[in-house]
């Protein structure tokens, strides 16, 4: 049984090409079932960044041709990547760990891999592959800091707000302008339980803003008003009423809404769009550094999978060897029965057990060695030798 992967991702195809082969969840599940019928096992992974078909088949060439036929519409055929066995496993492990994502270490992909596995049609090979991929993804997240730092302006704003306030639940967010950008930037903060108050652009010049700032913990500004909506003096005038509570201000407007001098006031932290983007850049750099450690984990997992897959190659020889040994044991026991005379039930069971133990102990080490050799450089050389020495081919 071989593992086959055919796919297309953001590395090789822009969105206008990727969307041609994107599969909605029900279609992906249906296709996996169809492919499993034709090949043996199949899982379809389709996200906004990739569409990949994982197949396990005895005839790898046939399975690959089938997958290419499905994904390789028009000019897409030349862009498809086609991987087999260990390379395919390593690719999936990297995908699950977020190492193949646009933003290294992004966490959403692990859930998408799980969903694809659960809605797919895996057999023994793909089941093991996907379970190990999910394990590798979790291991990378728990043993490295790859997913810790914010990877977008919105998450950077939320992370900074948390660095100031801790838990954002119940914190008061004031959005000035109420436009799409402001709402998007505050999205992550709001999703962490903060309460929102919005003041539209047309009224930001009035006293209502100052009352809002007095109550707020976080201010997000994205108005299109010329000049500063909040100057240093205006903010300073409400500081006494705030009784030392810190104030975190996010200015994503261009031209800027908030006077940069506000940042100089005690307890006030003002970040404009450039500041937030530099936090994101720093975070991405940290993620890239962690990616090196994550690659080591993924390679280890891929190597474990390869060892497991290789050990499957010698399973028929092991089964034949054990069957042959069992046949000899049973025959010899039957022949000895007449010489042993009348045995009680417990004596008979003791003899059965003893002979079975002898066979098991004799075959244990050769079985382990055959599996080890199959996973290593030796390949199936021991299995071939066993087949020859014990005449397993003749039996077949």
């Amino acid at each position, binding site marked *: 049984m071989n593992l086959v992967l055919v796919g297309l991702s953001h590395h090789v195809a822009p969105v206008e090409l990727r969307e041609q082969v994107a599969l909605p969840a029900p279609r992906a599940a249906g296709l996996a079932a169809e492919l499993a019928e034709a090949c043996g096992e199949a899982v379809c992974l389709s996200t906004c960044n990739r569409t990949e078909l994982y197949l396990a088949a005895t005839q790898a060439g046939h399975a690959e041709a089938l997958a290419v036929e499905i994904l390789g519409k028009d000019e897409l055929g030349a862009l498809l990547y086609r991987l087999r066995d260990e390379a395919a496993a390593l690719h999936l492990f990297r995908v699950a760990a977020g190492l193949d994502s646009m933003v290294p270490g992004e966490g959403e992909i692990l859930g998408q891999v799980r969903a694809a596995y659960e809605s797919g049609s895996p057999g023994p090979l793909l089941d093991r592959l996907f379970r190990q991929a999910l394990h590798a993804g979790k291991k990378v997240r728990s*043993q*490295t*800091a790859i997913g*810790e*730092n*914010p990877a977008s302006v919105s998450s*950077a704003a939320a*992370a*900074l707000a*948390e*660095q*100031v*306030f*801790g838990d954002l639940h119940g914190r008061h967010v004031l959005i000035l302008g109420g436009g799409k950008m402001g709402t998007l930037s505050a999205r992550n903060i709001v999703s962490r339980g903060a309460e929102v108050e919005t003041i539209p652009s047309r009224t930001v010049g009035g006293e209502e803003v100052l009352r809002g700032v007095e109550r707020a913990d976080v201010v997000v500004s994205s108005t299109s008003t010329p000049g500063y909506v909040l100057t240093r003096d205006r903010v300073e005038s409400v500081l006494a009423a705030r*009784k*030392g*509570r*810190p104030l975190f201000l996010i200015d994503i407007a261009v031209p800027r809404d908030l006077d940069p001098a506000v*940042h100089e006031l*005690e*307890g006030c*932290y003002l*970040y404009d769009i450039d*500041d937030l983007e*530099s*936090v994101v850049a*720093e*975070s991405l750099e*940290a993620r890239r550094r962690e990616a090196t450690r994550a690659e080591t984990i993924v390679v280890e997992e891929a190597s474990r999978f390869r060892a497991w897959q290789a050990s499957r190659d010698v399973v028929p020889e092991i089964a034949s060897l054990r069957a042959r040994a069992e046949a000899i044991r049973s025959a010899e026991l039957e022949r000895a029965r007449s010489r042993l005379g009348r045995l009680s039930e417990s004596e008979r069971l003791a003899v059965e057990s003893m002979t079975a133990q002898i066979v098991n102990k004799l075959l244990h080490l050769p079985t382990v060695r055959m599996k080890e050799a199959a996973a290593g450089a030796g390949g199936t050389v021991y299995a071939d030798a066993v087949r020859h020495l014990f005449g397993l081919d003749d039996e077949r």
Partner: protein
Amino acid sequence: MAELLFWPALIAYGEAAFAYAGNARRPGLAGILATWGVRLGWVAQTALLVGQAVRAEGFPWDTWAGSLNLFVWLVVGAYLIWGCRVRYRLLGLAVMPLAAGLLVLARIGGGTGLGQRSHYSSAFLALHVGLVLAAFAGFTLAAALSGLYLWLERRLKRRRAGGLLGRAPSLVTLETLAARTVVFALPALTAGIVVGLARLRSDGGRFDALMAVTLLTWLVYAAFLLLRYELGWRGRRAAYLALAGFTLVIVVRLGLPLTHFS
């Protein structure tokens, strides 16, 4: 034999200090090793202190080195209450090297030995020393929290906090914890001072400069709480005030060998 427990305590504290430094560079396993170092070291030091208490005649920590030993135990114990959380590992970087260093000093001064004869026969004095040391341990932690607050606040002001996000406690948490630590430590100092003054009055001793500095320390921390909770003094100003109070704590600690243990 029990005095050999000094070594596992020191090794564990030292290991924790190095592991915290490693964790600051690359969070993960080093942080876990550091936490276990603190825990095991504290258990070993507790056993050492129990051994000292059992073998001593009277109060076993009445020398400056002995009191330093007890002081380290109190500081690490207070840190252990919440310091094992991932986000407080940066604080461990400030606390554990200090703890290891002071423990070595206590050893050099002979404060970790067993079977010491106490100069303090009175339970009054033992209570006085115990309460004041507990308060000083609290002030030390409050200072560490305030120091971390100022460092983190500076990073946020300079817009260079990117690498720290999610790895350090928030500003509000640090500031609140420092204030709460002082809330617990100040009553201990108050009680310690009252016990000390009562003994002074009954024994007819002299009021010395160190006692004056201790009273000044009390005033600074009382002002800290008053300003913090009544007038809304928070942030940098409160942190600087806590550090000013801690400077006086250091003066008292350094002055102890000259006045009380001479």
